[in-house]
């Protein structure tokens, strides 16, 4: 499966698997290079995803014509 298509959970699980596989002394050099490459890719992909969320708080309402709309919400201001 392509790394980009894996869910975050799958990526983490795969990464843990790779660490375990690399700990096995009988792994061939070729295989360990492959795993190494994949592991580094997975790790950087996960790090990238951690920064993907947009970092905002929005309120979801229905407009008068029934459409779903969002607006950014500042709770401190709302309170006053």
């Amino acid at each position: 499966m392509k790394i980009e298509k894996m869910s975050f959970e799958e990526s983490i699980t795969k990464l843990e698997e790779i660490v375990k596989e690399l700990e096995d002394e009988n792994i061939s050099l070729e295989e360990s290079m492959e795993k190494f490459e994949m592991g580094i890719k997975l790790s950087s992909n996960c790090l990238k995803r951690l920064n993907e969320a947009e970092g905002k708080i929005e309120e979801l309402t229905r407009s008068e014509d029934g459409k779903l709309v969002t607006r950014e919400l500042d709770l401190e201001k709302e309170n006053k």
Partner: protein
Amino acid sequence: MEDNKTLKSKIYTVSELNLEIRKNLESSYSDIWLEGEVSNFYFHDKKHMYFDLKDENSKIRVVMFHSNNKNLLFNIKEGLHILINGYVSVYEKRGEYQIVALDARPVGKGSLILAFEQLKEKLEKKGYFDRIHKKNIPILPNKIGIATSVGGAVIRDIISVLERRFKNFHLIIRDVNVQGITSSDEICKAIDDLCQYGVDVIILARGGGSLEDLWAFNTEKLAEKIFDCPVPLISAVGHETDYTISDFVADKRAATPSVAGEVVILNKTEAVENLKEASKKIKNLVKSKMAILKKEFNFLTSRRIFIKPETILNKFNQAAGELCIKLIGNMKRLIRAREKILSDYRQLIDEKNIFKRIYIYRMAIKNMDIRIISDIKNYLTLKKSRLKLILENLQGKNPVAILERGFAIIYKEKEDKNIKSIDEVKINQKVRIMLTDGILNARIFKKIYKKLEIGFKNEN
């Protein structure tokens, strides 16, 4: 008839009497409380309820109309001990009196608790709480949906937990009343809207309160909405000790709203730390693997064979030289042996003898030639004399010879077929008579039948 008219007392019709009794009863028992056990319960078309209330010795009919029972939180069931409020009336059609119940509540425990227990039991039987239906909560949701009251402290608690765990979290809030009559419907609608908008997880959140305060989260409608929700859902209602129906149906129960903030998303700092740790570990593992292999490589390459590879070659060179010498010697020996066999055969051949034999055979052939020629000559002479004999014999049978002896052949004038019988010609017909020296054209004058049998016989 006349007798009746003279009666002093009033004569009622049935309807009049029933109406009057009803009025009397309704005014005398206009607002009463009655306690008893439910029996013969009948819920007509899920609208009006008909049942008896009874004690050890007696019972009374009760009717509770739809408008009065639709807001009951618990279900009235056979055997339930309840207290009803209402008035006594008469069903005039049958002349039966009954209590019209306006309200009912369970005896012994609160109606809310009973309603909660009844719904919980029902949903549990339907499998709404089964593990198999629980969806996994994603550990890294891009968008977190939440249905709660924007005005409350709960949302602030959750946000502060989220800020601590995951700085760039994306929260979609749907403001709802978390108590009151409309609350349950609002929350249902919020779930629909959040699903439609597209979030990765939904939190239903509310602070602590009495059972009544939390009631919006104990309705069957909301339970069904949560059960059918395609998005993973966390129920975070009340304090740690509060349980609501939504807690049971949801994919996950958070003991408090703050806990919901914890379970809804991973701790970013920790996650980053773990990922870096994993990368480091991978790098180190490969590094040490390389180091081991390098060591092995060095050990191998330090052996003589790699340092002075020509030693191997020298050994082979020497062997090859020896083999080469052996090969040439063998070949020479072989050639010599063959040459000897050849000269042996040569000696066996005697040239003089061969020429002598050729001469002898030539002579023999010459003799044979002479014999064959004389044989052929003899043969020819023999054959010639035989032929002469045959020719002479043939001479006697030749028609020309016959003609020479005086016979003639007769033909028809135009045909080359000879006539053998006088029947073949007619009188006056022209014929040709062939003799040895020419042809006579003649005409037949007369036919005389006379057989020449005897003459022929004599000739033969």
